[in-house]
């Protein structure tokens, strides 16, 4: 009989959690964060078109990261929060 120890680590602050999906997009405010990959704007705008056909959406921000390889600037998060978006559509491209 012996004991073995858990090798995993859990979150430290608990502040980094996945955003809760909105219950509905009807009438929602939506922000878009494009990570900068080529043609991502085309994909994201097409997704917005399709969503718009089903829901009355308001797009509050459409932001493109300056460089794919870095985290988006803090200013972007501030703008998205200030826009009171209900959800953020994050997308790529290529």
């Amino acid at each position, binding site marked *: 009989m012996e004991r*073995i*120890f*858990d090798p995993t*680590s859990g979150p430290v602050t608990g502040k980094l959690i996945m955003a809760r999906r909105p219950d509905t997009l009807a009438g929602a405010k939506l922000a878009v964060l494009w990570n900068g990959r080529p043609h991502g704007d085309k994909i994201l705008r097409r997704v917005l078109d399709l969503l718009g056909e089903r829901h009355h959406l308001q797009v509050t921000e459409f932001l493109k990261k300056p460089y794919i*390889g870095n985290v988006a600037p803090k200013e972007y998060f501030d703008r998205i929060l200030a826009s009171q978006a209900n959800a953020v559509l994050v997308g790529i491209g290529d």
Partner: protein
Amino acid sequence: MTEARALTSESFEVGSTYEAIEMCFDRGWTDGLPVVPPTERAIVRFLEGAGLAPEHVIGTIPERDRVITAEKLAINAVMAGARPEYMPVLVAAVEALTDPAFQFNHLASFGSPWPLMIVAGPAVRELGLNYGTWAMGPGCRANATIGRTLSLLVSNCALGHLGGIQRGTYGHPGRFNSMCIGENPEEFGWQPHNVEMGFDRETTTVTLLSTYPWIQQPTCVQMEPERILAAIGGSIAEGDFVRGVYPIIIGRPWAEVFVRARWTKERMAEWLIEHTRRSVASLKARGRWGVLTSQFEAFGAVTQEVLTGDESKYVWVWKESDLDPYVFDIAATQRKKGIYFVVAGGDGGTRTCWLTPYQFSTNPVTKPVRAR
């Protein structure tokens, strides 16, 4: 002596070693291969090997809201099949992994990057790291388990596993164990990697450098500096054409050619920087022109059609030119570029080896191994 009662990880009672191994599988703690059950006695020995208290924080990963403690590193090292005396090297590796310059988050990317780990200095011999024949193959416990520890740690403590925060399209075979190499420590006039990184010969260093899987390049049997470099540079130029820090791994016979000819690493790098280029025609033929960078919109309608004169226009892998914005991300200002020449591998054959640095973000990081 580290007190066993200081361990804070949750523990589970098991009836046998076999049951323990199966529990590790069931709980998703392995890389798909069996692990050594992390018992209290073993973990304490590894903590003693590191000279660290269990709660000592070696590094933090803000992107995952995680800290890496000595206890978690020790548990994963036990599971990987490592030995307690490897712990100082592993601590340095975790310090590199969690350094902000390494930009941990890139490991989740589509490109499936994984860091090559280069150990250079006295610990290569002390720990029995393989630096010769089959240097990147399986069979040497130190190479295999040091590399495997890092992989298990990223899986278990930073969500770097299938089903976690991991979006690699294909995954990286080197994560199983063979991305840890020792640099050949024999003295033959070659500047060792640890010295190149700014440390003295007696200080062992660990360098992490995120790459795609390695490429072996037939180099030639004509042992002249320019011919060897032309073969390597030609291969690099025809590759992904990424700008970053490239590790080039050469066996001692090739390194001796440069030593005998009195070529320093600096001169070797200068030669490659000057000569490693690719024509615009070739870049267009591979769809590598004007469309794969963050600033592509600025170009308007970019054609991949090869135009007259494109065969004689060039872009260099490392040397800057006016055409760079069509190929490289100009916003990647914090991206290092350069070449690390490392001596490892067998004496036979006609091949050298190089690795493409991961395309975005991330920089190589070197940390000294501190005596415990």
